[in-house]
């Protein structure tokens, strides 16, 4: 972004967020203290009178796991503090919420993420529940980074999730999107 950002770009940012009903978006360096600070406003945003409490709790659960994934596994860190850089957003959709997360991953992690998430996407709720229990007892598999409980936990809370990878100048982006309805 240049210092000559025009006001219509600012309006475009505003309009874009309004249009897609993104009620929370953070993009930048993240750490656990910041997550603590963000948790309350996020909880407030997703807990209005019309939203069932059980739904809000599932959205919150996915938000926390995604944020912690960025904090632990983002390959893009700030030079000064080593904080992980990433983007996390929550938007309103017709019958619930969409939680989106993006961060740079280490290139060698891509295959593991691809395999883990592809496998999880084929499982129904009962199978995910069994896998979660099994992982809890046995601990994470060898070479696991994020292939442990977190992704299974999220898969159990969403009605649908999608993931993708994109090669950019910034690095290999990992994109995770979860729909909670």
């Amino acid at each position: 972004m240049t210092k000559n950002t025009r006001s219509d770009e600012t309006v475009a940012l505003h309009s874009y967020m309004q249009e897609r009903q993104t009620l929370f978006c953070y993009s930048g360096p993240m750490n656990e203290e910041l997550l603590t600070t963000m948790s309350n406003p996020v909880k407030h945003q997703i807990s209005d009178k019309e939203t069932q409490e059980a739904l809000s709790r599932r959205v919150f659960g996915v938000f926390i796991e995604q944020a912690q994934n960025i904090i632990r596994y983002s390959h893009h860190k700030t030079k000064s503090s080593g904080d992980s850089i990433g983007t996390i957003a929550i938007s309103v959709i017709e019958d619930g919420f969409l939680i989106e997360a993006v961060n740079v991953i280490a290139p060698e992690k891509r295959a593991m993420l691809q395999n883990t998430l592809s496998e999880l996407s084929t499982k129904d709720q009962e199978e995910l529940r069994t896998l979660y229990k099994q992982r809890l007892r046995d601990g994470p598999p060898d070479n696991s980074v994020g292939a442990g409980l977190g992704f299974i936990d999220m898969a159990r809370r969403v009605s649908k999730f999608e993931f993708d990878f994109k090669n950019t100048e910034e690095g290999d982006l990992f994109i995770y999107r979860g729909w909670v309805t």
Partner: protein
Amino acid sequence: MIFEATQRTPLVEIESDRCLVRGECYPENISEWADPVMQALDEGLNQSEGAFTVDVELYYFNSSSAKFLFDFFDFLEGASEAGRKITINWRYRSDDDTMQEAGEDFEEDLSHCCYNLVVI
């Protein structure tokens, strides 16, 4: 021993005959929070030999805290197997399927403790 609740950790009260865990659990660093709790639980249990009751009422816990809960129950199960009379009440709100399922899943690994699922 009392561990006051924080935004990301539950209230924990431990005495010689009971333990209460209530709130939300997604600490910044799970072992930093959980290690003193487990130590206090060990000390609490060793203070007497009578019946020991554990009430757990959680509204949310993250995946890292699930591992702590697993170890927490495993520890109680061990004490129960060694002869201590231990009752665990897993308390959950009637509309909270996630906590109900979690309570049911923890029960599967407990055979010596007396375990109750309690709707609140």
